[in-house]
């Protein structure tokens, strides 16, 4: 019933607001016109090349084939997308959370930094794809190994950026806080964390896209669900249109996550760093 209620409120919206919304949409369209035309042009070119060189569908499907694949496999795509979203999201949250907490610890204890930073670098050096089978052996075939891999992929860039961000507070600001007899906790909340935000968001934007990649790669190893599993299955069965449709969905997923992080960033960071005058 809920969608009925929402649809009535939509039609009940005052006309000026609708027009404003239309204006805004038109504005966005105009602003991104070059990008939109380029994208449409490339898709048309792709269709033309496939048609002109008579490329067989299993080798490279045309955009029209892919569009039909979306329609025919809507249910499969949908049911496999959900676990991937969940894994990418949870991996994103946990990977970044651990990285942020670790960075805060490093900044307050140089012993901790000396002890664990090299280990973090070592973990980073392990190829993620080589780690996946190990995690599957330990945690089985459920969501856990996928979340861990998505989290691990997010972890390192955020750790590095966050440590740098927390240390980016200018010496003068720290002097100021010392003159005010601020405690370490107060310095963390009032100076270090706010000044680390631009660094954190730079990392979160990387993490947003790579967490999706991490989840998909993890699903390649003996998984029976998720976009990653679907990619493997479609490949082995020469269902190229489905494969392409899956890849498009994975990309859209990553872009949406990136977009969400960007919007939050724009809302949170309205200030400019002190040096940028």
């Amino acid at each position: 019933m809920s969608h009925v209620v929402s649809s009535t409120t939509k039609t009940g919206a005052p006309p000026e607001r609708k027009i404003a919304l239309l204006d805004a949409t038109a504005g966005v369209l105009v602003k991104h016109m070059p990008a939109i035309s380029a994208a449409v042009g490339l898709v048309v070119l792709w269709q033309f090349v496939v048609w002109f060189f008579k490329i067989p569908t299993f080798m490279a499907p045309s955009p029209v084939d892919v569009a039909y694949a979306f329609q025919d496999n809507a249910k499969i795509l949908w049911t496999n997308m959900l676990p991937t979203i969940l894994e990418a999201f949870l991996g994103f949250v946990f990977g970044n959370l651990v990285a942020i907490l670790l960075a805060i610890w490093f900044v307050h204890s140089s012993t901790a930094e000396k002890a664990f930073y090299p280990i973090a670098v070592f973990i980073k050096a392990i190829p993620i794809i080589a780690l996946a089978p190990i995690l599957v052996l330990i945690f089985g075939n459920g969501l856990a190994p996928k979340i861990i891999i998505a989290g691990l992929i997010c972890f390192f860039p955020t750790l590095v950026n966050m440590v740098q961000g927390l240390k980016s507070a200018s010496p003068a600001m720290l002097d100021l806080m010392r003159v005010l007899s601020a405690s370490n906790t107060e310095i963390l909340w009032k100076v270090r964390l706010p000044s680390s935000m631009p660094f954190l968001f730079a990392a979160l934007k990387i993490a947003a896209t790579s967490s999706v990649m991490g989840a998909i790669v993890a699903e390649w190893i003996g998984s029976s669900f998720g976009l990653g599993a679907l990619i493997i299955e479609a490949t082995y069965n020469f269902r190229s249109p489905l494969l392409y449709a899956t890849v498009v969905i994975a990309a859209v997923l990553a872009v949406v996550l990136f977009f969400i992080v960007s919007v939050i960033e724009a809302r949170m960071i309205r200030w400019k760093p002190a040096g940028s005058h």
Partner: protein
Amino acid sequence: MAMLGTAKLMPNVPQTEPAATAVSIRNLSVRFGDRNNEFTALSDVSVDIPEGAFVTMLGPSGCGKSTLLRCVADLVHISDGSISVFGRSPQEARESRDFAFVFQDATLLPWRNVLDNVRLPLEVGKHAQTGDHADPHELLAMVGLKGRENALPHELSGGMRQRVAIARALITRPRILLMDEPFGALDEITRDRLNEELLRVWQETGTTILFVTHSIPEAAFLGQNVLMLQAHPGRVKEFMKVDLPFPRSLAVRDTVEFIGVTAHLRRLLEECL
């Protein structure tokens, strides 16, 4: 610039002996570096700053002016000698908010608006909530920033940012203001105006001010006394009184007496090199 009633800005100074000592520096030495590579920034500095005085500090670059100021503010470790601020150690004075520090650049927190920057000292430290303080709106009006309470630092000019920093320093009604080249990065006109405002604040509040500068006219115009430091190693060259009457206006700089003072300071400074 809006003028302001004096009553609310008066610090809680017990008005007993008029010429008490605000800062007493005894045989102060500061050395940086380790044993093999030691550098003496200050050597055997002794000086008494009377309460309510406006003392400007001059000296060649690198002679240790900032270091001396930072010692008083408990930002630099003292190697030898002692400093007492109203009879207490710099650390105790810092913890009880006896002084405020104004840095060369405003060091505002860029994510806080003007009002929240001015209020920062009330939010941190042991004495955050206790103790009376000045009204931030009143202070902003005093430094001519009424109506800009919600602006972010990057939306202000350099001079405006520095005025916010001064308002922030005054919010706790400090008994001592330590200022390290606060107007060094500003153009001359802004600097002149802020000089006049600072003198007015000083006369209204009775705060003791220790003010580092590179400018001889600024040192002579602002200071009741000029503390001249000399380099290698940093030590006191002279602690001299400026014989110009208060209140001073910018026009005083065109008088023969003023020019005499600056000429004398310039000679002293040249001897330091």
